[in-house]
């Protein structure tokens, strides 16, 4: 198992290297002086000069990349041109809200989507199925910020159950955090759940159409046992896969949700950095999210073994 993990991590290295090259070239392939570009629109010549030195722009591009990558490996991603703070510090400051948001969303999603998907598959083509799938398609069809504003209006402004905006850090207590994350998570989860519910339904249907389900019925097992022990466990792999893939979508959702709900997470940092053309931060954030996605995919792969003995490492 350990060897498998190490192996997968090693396999991620070239991917990560390519991502690095891509991010590097994002700035360096743009027309114009990379130092000016990196320094941002609002830099003074002194800052530009500092960056020029730091990046060794007088050297060949390969050397520059080497230096940049070397620094990045040492977690030195440069300083924000907007706030002059180290990029790693800016990211570190904001990991907690984003991670909490993602985790809570994931939990809510799974709690909503998997049972719905199972019910829909069980009652395939019945009324429940149609309603659930209507919800799923609808969830797909609404931009997350619209859902967000609606939720805020109803549950925060009108009913005053949840805060309008903001994030309470964990040090204020887990409950406070969860309270502050309820609306954003639900807004995100509605979109995400739509996806998961669909896939759960589809793979449940597939599992229910498998011969082994017929066997399970022929054995006289109860509906619940057939659905959960037999079908759902077999359907687990595609569902987990989609949760993994969906995480990428989730990241996109996080960016928007954090803006709507004013959560000081990495998503907000990203949007701000991009509108401010704060390239060191943009690079850092993309690198961070890419690493995260690679990690998530690794976790997803590892979790296959939980569901399918055929992939046991």
């Amino acid at each position: 198992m350990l060897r498998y993990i190490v192996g997968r991590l090693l396999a991620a290295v070239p991917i990560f290297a390519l991502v690095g090259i891509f991010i590097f070239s994002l700035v360096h392939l743009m027309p114009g002086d990379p130092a000016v570009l990196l320094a941002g629109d609002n830099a003074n010549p002194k800052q530009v000069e500092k960056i020029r030195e730091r990046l060794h722009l007088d050297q060949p591009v390969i050397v520059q990349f080497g230096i940049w990558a070397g620094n990045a490996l040492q977690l030195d991603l440069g300083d924000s041109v907007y706030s002059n703070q180290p990029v790693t510090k800016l990211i570190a400051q904001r990991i907690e809200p984003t991670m909490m948001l993602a985790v809570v969303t994931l939990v809510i999603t799974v709690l909503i989507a998997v049972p719905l998907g199972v019910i829909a598959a069980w009652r395939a083509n019945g009324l429940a199925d149609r309603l659930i799938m209507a919800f799923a398609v609808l969830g797909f069809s609404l931009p997350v910020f619209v859902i967000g504003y609606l939720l805020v209006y109803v549950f925060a402004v009108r009913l005053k159950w949840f805060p309008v905006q903001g994030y309470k850090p964990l040090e204020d207590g887990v409950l406070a955090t969860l309270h502050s994350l309820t609306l954003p998570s639900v807004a995100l989860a509605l979109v995400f759940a739509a996806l998961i519910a669909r896939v759960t339904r589809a793979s449940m249907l597939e599992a229910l159409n498998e011969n082994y389900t017929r066997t399970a019925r022929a054995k006289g097992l109860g509906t619940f046992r057939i659905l959960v022990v037999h079908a759902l466990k077999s359907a687990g792999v595609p569902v987990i896969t989609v949760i993994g893939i969906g995480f990428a979508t989730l990241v996109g959702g996080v960016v928007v949700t954090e803006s709507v709900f004013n959560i000081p997470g990495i998503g907000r940092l990203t949007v701000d950095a991009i509108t401010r053309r704060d390239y060191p931060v943009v690079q850092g954030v993309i690198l961070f999210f890419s690493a995260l996605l690679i990690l998530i995919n690794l976790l997803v792969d590892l979790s296959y073994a939980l569901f399918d003995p055929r992939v046991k490492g």
Partner: protein
Amino acid sequence: MSSKPYLSLDKISKTYALGREKFGGPERFLQAVDQISLDVPRGETLGLVGESGCGKSSLARLIMQLERPSSGAIAFDGVDPAGLNATELKAARQRFQMIFQDPYASLNPRMRARAIIAEALVNFRKGNAEEINRRVEELAIQVGLSSFHLDRFPHELSGGQCQRIGIARAIALSPDLIVADEPVSALDVSIQAQILNLIVRLQEEMGLTLVFISHDLSVVSHVADRVAVMYLGRIVELGKTADLFGRPAHPYTRTLLTAVPRPMPSSRGKRSRISGELPSPLNPPSGCHFRTRCSFADARCAAEVPVLRVIGGAQQAACHHAEDIQATLNQDEIETDNA
């Protein structure tokens, strides 16, 4: 063998790399075809039998140049297609054709029957559109289809009709050799005879050389002049149909003959019991692959790979004990009415 062989296989092998089962585990290889040598004279029907996974289809694909052998050589009329360039190989393909096991899956679901049959003719520019169309209609009649069948998609046709289209496609270029890979195993019993009759008739009409693959011994014994028995990638016995079914020399051939239930009163309750599990082709037993299920096996069988050798007349077997076995053969045990 009387005439010069049309198809000749010289120690061909095919090994598939299966990758690693787990990370860091050993790379796994599967020897699907193991050093097979075989000559098929022009006009002969060679039957190829063996259990699932023994390498019959792999051998067929090798003959058809759909895959390259890992080692060994194939010759058609003395020419090895491996030495041909792409254009020459394409031209050579006209001479050997294949009928596929699954009649439905071997037809492109998005093409009409007419286009499927015509494709070969189009590829080799056998005339203009009108001529090709006329030829397709002829072929359809030859395989017993009406022209309205030609305008249907595969899923609108029955299995037997699909197989007829597959046959028409195979004979469209008037090949010298046809490899029929289990052409009736996917068909209903009542259709089987139609297709078998069709293949035999076409072979005779066109003077084809035929390699007929099947796991059904009665089908093979019906059509084949000679039969080769395969077990885990190797030919274990080869001989004239009557000889092989009448005096099987390899214990596996004997097992096969008794294992197949036949609708004859004699087969009721009289099967000899077969022991042992079918070994995994990934990890076959050393020496003779069959020794784990063989009552004659001894230490030599584990140590030494038996080679295919002549054991009398045209019959060849790959068994250290072939003569003893043939001698102890109790005629009562085996059906003889198929000879």
